[in-house]
């Protein structure tokens, strides 16, 4: 909301407050100052005394202007929209216009001692069509900040509709500063009205419109408003229309009560406040026709809708230069009904903004009366005796009690009862016995806690001593899970992985890249109202987004990538309920180490390297990758840590990788954090160090090339040979040519380590154990020894 400082000054003496002081005062009161529009310094009113074409430039003129000083000033000017005799803003040398400091200089060879300005150059409006033409009543030399006093752009919180007017704001400032309000804080109507006959006003939709009043003024002269009114409206960004419309806008901005004036000649029969019929068309003042619903309330005559209640007037019934008789509406509309209509049709007006937050019911009639006074003054005419009204204004009879002990408990500091009383009285509350009577305009004060807020706000939190004390709170399960994720994040970053954070909504196309296994048979969750296609589904896994990021980075020239993300993934249960799980996603592609002079051509990352990384992530655990068929990947394997299957690792299908411009093999993995945590949370237990030496034996096992290595590993693990301590594959040999080994065979060479915990093994004991082991291996698996 725009608020003019000079307008506010009508209500209280702000002459001793600088603009920054005012801004600080408003901010401290909880009214956010979003912007301050004020004229630059060193700008004055000047009268154009002469104007001639620039000798060397067709588009420029050379003007002589009177700036109030003894001599005329010569200014070179590019605008064309003025006449000699016009008063315009003149930026004197030293003035700062935008980023430019005005200096005396030559323009195309002609002296120029300043700059004549447009409204836009002065930061006052978007109007850059030419010089800003000012009233000729302004004396040359008048400082421009007197012509255009500062205007504040304020953000008023939704609980304080009473601040949405100059009077309301002045009332608040008076309470905060102790300055005296020049007029009483509330206006009450002095002229009694009378209940309307049904032929005059009928309310059929009492939900939306509890109260409607109308005044009729005949024989008004509709014409432009006087300068003071036009300037007031222009200063806060409103366009003057004609005196009657301007007066309704003035009262809106002055008192916060929206009014509407109808051209009485356009009305057929009395006013009917009713629901629109579904599909009813309404031609609004903004030139558009709206198709209404039966939830909208309209102000109608016997034939058609004249106004969308509380939101906008209609085009045909508006006040024009031809209007002579007017009907002035002053009503109270239900906030939520107006909000719904306003949002339904996307019409947001100064009127709907105030009605949907709540206007002061006690001021409806007073606002109407004030408008009538102004209309009679500025447009003449004759008012028909007394307003007619229908319905009833909502009660504003509210009292709230405030207990000092409660106030102290919430604030944590004893504010003296006298100070509490002073604050509440300044805000317009009246003490009635043990209770406080709430002024009609303070719709937000209904409970004791609301009064505590006022006390705290006005007293200021900076004056309340801070207290730092805390009870002991035991760590929660969420703490443990957070810490575990943090350990994983830390390990991964030390393994060269970059942590990513992506938006949890993904596109339908990305679903195809999902490799999560735990909930793969469940449907993904689609939002009902996606805004854009790329953000339609809650991600079922992390790999799809990580692949997008890999694509982006490769495109940006980074081809060695190790990416991970830890976060929530989603699926729909068969009953449609959301399932949320914490996952870890990995994507790795490119070289095993950065190329350097020591390793000019490092190898590309492969399955074994991924497995190595996974083992580093889960130290002390047996990590197995168990091959499975998964159409989503070229090679896929379930990740088993200890006894638990925790996710899937795989080699992305090259066709998919190519689509994403990823040219090197791309390894992906997706793990369920909870399962990993279940395995890794087991405590480490001390094992005595071996005291006797180990003896090793090597063996080369020949097998069909499709025999998974896991078969051999599983055999070693489960063979039960007590002396076998460990086993390590040290060579894999294949010969596609078939010369040294049949093409469909492979040789796996292992080092087996034997050790006893009781004695130093003799060679014969080891040989015996080794032979025993190989015999069993041969009968367990289709292998031979080389």
């Amino acid at each position: 909301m725009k608020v003019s400082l000079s307008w506010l000054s009508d209500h209280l003496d702000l002459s001793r407050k600088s603009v920054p002081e005012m801004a600080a005062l408003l901010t401290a009161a909880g009214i956010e100052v979003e912007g301050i529009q004020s004229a630059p310094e060193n700008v004055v009113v000047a009268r154009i005394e002469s104007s001639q074409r620039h000798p060397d430039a067709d588009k420029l003129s050379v003007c002589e202007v009177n700036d109030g000083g003894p001599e005329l000033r010569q200014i070179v000017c590019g605008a064309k929209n003025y006449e000699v005799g016009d008063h315009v803003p003149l930026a004197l040398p030293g003035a700062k216009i935008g980023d430019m400091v005005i200096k005396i200089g030559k323009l195309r060879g002609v002296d120029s001692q300043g700059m004549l300005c447009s409204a836009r150059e002065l930061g006052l409006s978007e109007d850059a069509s030419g010089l800003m033409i000012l009233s000729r009543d302004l004396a040359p030399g008048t400082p421009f900040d007197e012509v255009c006093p500062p205007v504040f752009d304020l953000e008023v919180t939704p609980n304080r509709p009473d601040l949405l007017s100059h009077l309301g704001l002045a009332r608040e400032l008076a309470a905060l500063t102790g300055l005296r309000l020049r007029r009483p804080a509330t206006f009450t109507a002095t002229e009694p009205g009378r209940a309307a006959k049904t032929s005059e006003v009928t309310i059929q939709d009492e939900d939306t419109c509890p109260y409607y009043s109308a005044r009729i003024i005949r024989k008004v002269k509709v014409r432009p408003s006087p300068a003071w009114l036009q300037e007031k409206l222009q200063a806060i960004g409103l366009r003057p229309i004609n005196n009657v419309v301007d007066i309704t806008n003035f009262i809106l901005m002055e008192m916060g009560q929206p009014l509407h004036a109808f051209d009485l000649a356009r009305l057929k029969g009395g006013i009917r406040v009713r629901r629109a019929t579904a599909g009813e068309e309404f031609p609004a003042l903004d030139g558009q026709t709206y198709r209404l619903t039966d939830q909208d309330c309209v102000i109608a005559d016997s034939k058609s809708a004249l106004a969308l209640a509380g939101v906008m007037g209609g085009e045909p019934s508006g006040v024009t230069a031809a209007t002579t008789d007017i009907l002035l509406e002053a009503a109270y509309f239900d906030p939520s009904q107006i909000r719904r209509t306003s949002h339904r049709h996307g019409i947001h007006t100064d009127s709907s903004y105030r009605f949907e937050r709540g206007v002061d019911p006690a001021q409806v009639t007073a606002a109407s009366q004030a408008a009538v006074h102004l209309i009679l003054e500025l447009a003449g005419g004759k008012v028909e005796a007394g307003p007619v009204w229908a319905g009833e204004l909502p009660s504003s009879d509210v009292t709230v009690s405030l207990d000092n002990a409660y106030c102290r408990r919430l604030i944590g500091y004893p504010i003296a009862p006298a100070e509490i009383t002073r604050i509440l009285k300044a805000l317009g509350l009246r003490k009635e016995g043990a209770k406080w009577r709430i002024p009609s305009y303070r719709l937000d004060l209904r409970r004791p806690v609301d009064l505590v807020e006022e006390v705290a706000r006005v007293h200021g939190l900076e004056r309340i001593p801070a207290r730092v004390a805390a009870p002991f709170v035991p760590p929660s399960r969420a703490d443990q899970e957070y810490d575990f994720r943090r350990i994983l994040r830390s390990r991964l970053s030390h393994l060269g992985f970059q942590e990513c954070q992506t938006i949890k909504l993904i596109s339908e196309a990305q679903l195809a890249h999902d490799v999560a296994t735990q909930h793969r048979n469940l449907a993904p969750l689609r939002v009902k109202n996606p805004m854009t296609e790329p953000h339609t589904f809650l991600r079922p896994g992390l790999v799809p987004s990580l692949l997008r990021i890999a694509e982006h980075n490769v495109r940006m020239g980074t081809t060695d990538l190790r990416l991970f993300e830890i976060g929530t993934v989603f699926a729909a249960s068969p009953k449609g309920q959301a399932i949320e799980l914490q996952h870890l996603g990995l994507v790795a592609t490119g070289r095993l180490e950065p190329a350097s002079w020591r390793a000019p051509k490092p190898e590309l990352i492969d399955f074994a390297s991924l497995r190595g990384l996974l083992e580093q992530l889960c130290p002390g655990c047996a990590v197995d990758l168990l091959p499975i068929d998964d159409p989503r990947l070229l090679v896929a394997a379930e990740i088993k840590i200890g006894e638990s299957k925790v996710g899937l690792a795989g080699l992305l299908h090259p066709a998919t990788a190519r689509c994403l411009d990823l040219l090197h093999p791309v390894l992906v993995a997706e793990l369920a954090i909870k399962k990993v945590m279940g395995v890794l949370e087991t405590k480490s237990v001390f094992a005595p160090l071996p005291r006797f030496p180990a003896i090793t034996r090597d063996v080369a096992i020949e097998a069909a090339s499709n025999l998974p290595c896991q078969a051999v590993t599983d055999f070693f693990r489960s063979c039960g040979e007590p002396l076998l301590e460990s086993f390590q594959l040290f060579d894999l040999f294949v010969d596609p040519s078939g010369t040294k080994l049949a093409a469909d065979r492979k040789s796996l060479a292992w080092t087996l380590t034997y050790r006893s915990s009781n004695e130093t093994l003799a060679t014969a004991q080891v040989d015996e154990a080794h032979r025993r082991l190989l015999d069993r291996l041969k009968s367990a698996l289709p292998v031979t020894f080389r």
Partner: protein
Amino acid sequence: MLEDLDQIHRSALAEATSIPDETALEEFRVRYLGKKGSLTAAAARMKDLAPADRPLFGQKLNEVRAAITAALEDRSSALMAAKDAQAAQGIDPTLPARPLHRGSLHPLSQVLDRAVDTLRRMGFALAEGPEVETEWHCFDALNTPPDHPARKESDTYYFPNGKLLRTHTSSVQIRTMESASSVPVRIIAPGTAFRRDEIDETHSISFTQLEGLYVDRDVSLADLKGTLEAFFQVIFGAGTEIRFRPHFFPFTEPSFEIDVKLRTVGRAERWVEIAGCGLVDPAVFAAVTKCRKDDLFHPDLVTGFAFGMGVDRLAMIQYGIPDLRLFNENDVRFLRQFV
């Protein structure tokens, strides 16, 4: 015979100083001292001597063996020293590294971890709640009017079953109080919140929030002020000016926004909005009480404060990041800047 020994002695010593390497050294040792070495052969002939000559011969033999052994050891040491010296050659410490891939934590994680660490030291425990949330937890229980704009489908993501993507982590306040078995409740809840918004440099459809809640018998504005001042002094540095500006939120009363005064190089000092906070509105306690069907959180019995801040915003301010979209773009050239 003794001349033979002298001969062996002379030739061995002459030869030893020019032995070129370890292999030749071993060959030398075998040739003189080995089983078939010349000194061994000479020794074998001692039995041919007259018993009277033997002591002298034996003495001489020992002298020669000791001398050859010493020469051998000298040469071995010399060769080792030469080799050691050679090992240093060609090592130029100024050559560039053979580097490893360097990973990093996301800037949002780093900022969040720091905030979480700080608040945990101040006695807060972590809490969490679902991101797909009910309207009751996200709005109703938080005293949000039924026709509040945030509930509109134009502002919030919904699902066909009426659930929604939480628009703030404040829903975790409700989740926590619903299931708490005792007071005090002193929790923080970091998490994602979603808004249906156009994505640009200062807006996204999702962002990370950090929520806090402290409920006990007599929690007051003085506690709120002390706790959050202490917190932001850690985050932004001791002595940072902090102000509490009255504001409005449906679920707190009184409500404040917190501004910190930033002093950044090359920019004028300015107040920057950083968080929202307030005392838990009695209506929120009433909603929880109604749902729990007991009096643990009865508005007459407990008071509390709550706060919430945008982690993205904290990170943008702390690192001087101009565009929110960089956080989700995850360009590794960006990510690696934050160590």
